[in-house]
């Protein structure tokens, strides 16, 4: 996996240096899944994820148009794209908050994931939907770290550079996030149809040590 993605990064960098537009097509092809999956699991809504992904790629093109070849050659394309995506996402939330000041949007269940119904296996889809709801209950840092590590498959070093945190901090966000998800899953299984709610006290999600 590591070697394969390194090759992909290299291929993208070469293509971008050779020709910005042709290279953009290679960049998009290589990382659309990474960016879209991350966007979808961060914002939780299909249509918003499309908007965020389109905007992030457009911004990346505009940035690349101004970069010198040397800068493109030293680019870490995945971490760079995810950083752009996170900025777009934070900006969109600020704008949305100013417009609607509604907290319910964020907490609402995920209605808009049409492809999960048609394309994914039924059992996967159900797990996915439940899990998507639980992901949204994680504190933001944990959610971002878990999504980048386990949905987007980004290595710890790149997540650390995206979040501008030490690797140790990233690892602890991830492990606390996973721990919390396990608790939420256990609670959901135990509590039948009750909406999934953390059984853990505040100390568990915020973490002291």
């Amino acid at each position: 996996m590591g070697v394969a993605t390194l090759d992909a990064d290299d291929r993208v960098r070469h293509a971008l240096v050779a020709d910005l537009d042709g290279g953009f097509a290679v960049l998009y092809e290589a990382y659309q899944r990474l960016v879209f999956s991350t966007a979808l699991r961060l914002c939780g809504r299909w249509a918003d994820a499309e908007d965020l992904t389109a905007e992030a790629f457009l911004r990346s093109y505009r940035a690349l148009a101004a970069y010198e070849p040397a800068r493109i050659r030293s680019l870490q394309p995945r971490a760079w794209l995810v950083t752009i995506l996170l900025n777009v996402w934070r900006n969109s939330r600020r704008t949305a908050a100013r417009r609607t000041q509604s907290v319910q949007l964020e907490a609402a269940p995920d209605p808009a994931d049409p492809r999960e119904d048609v394309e994914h296996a039924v059992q996967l889809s159900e797990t996915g939907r439940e899990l998507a709801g639980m992901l949204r209950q994680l504190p933001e840092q944990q959610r971002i770290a878990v999504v980048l590590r386990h949905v987007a498959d980004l290595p710890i070093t790149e997540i650390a550079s995206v979040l501008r945190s030490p690797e140790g901090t990233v690892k602890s966000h991830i492990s606390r996030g996973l721990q919390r998800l396990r608790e939420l899953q256990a609670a959901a299984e135990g509590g039948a149809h009750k909406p999934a709610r953390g059984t853990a006290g505040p100390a568990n999600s915020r973490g002291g040590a």
Partner: protein
Amino acid sequence: MTDNDLLTTELAAMATDAPAELLDRVAARWVRVPGPLGDLYVASTDLGISFVRTDTAVQDEDAAFAASFRKRFARPLLPATRPPAGLGPALRTGRAGALRFDLRGSTEFEQAVLRTALAIPKGQVRPYSWIARQIGRPRAVRAVGSALARNPVPVLIPCHRVTRSDGTIGDYVFGSEMKESLLRAERVNLEEVRALARAGFHYVGSDTTGIVCFPTCPHGRRITAAHRHGFRSIEAAEAAGYRPCQYCRPVREHTDTDREVADAVPE
């Protein structure tokens, strides 16, 4: 706690490809197609046609077209597999009214100007002031000229059919020579338009029908010399008992207080 447990497998399974059509919200597509004079480079987005250049305007080079597109729109440009829907028929007939255009890069004023220009039929010309009046901004004649000069989709939105009321053809994105060639290819009688304008006439009327037209309107062009009269303004024609043609729709110039009567058009 291992990384290979059920939870992380479930998380990995949440990765999803973006919808296939999402790339078209980011990147525009381009094609090169035969136009009325030489080939045209045409770029379009998911909303419609957004940019047109003649082959001569980009020195016959794909890269030069891409560069001018990038400079103006800052958006990736990829090759299209086929021309946008309706482009072929629009180019054959010179009627582009049914095409979809992406005019996001233009201001509201510019868009109003362009939509009005789009309605000018092939083989006819209208003055800049006519557009200004049509969009309810009769004083903004100069701004109409600037808006047309920034037309991102020339040839298709026929800004070449907007000319000066003094009978000269005026400026054009691709130079006034190209404008003249396009108008001649549409069989506009530029000499006649010029001769009328020199004589001070911007409209022609028929004394048998009592209808007054723009000189390039097919109804105006049908009038035989014996029955044809030139007018300075629609007010003057109306004062002489004429009514404006419902096809080419000339409109009053509110600022014009001229009460001139009809004169016979010089041969």
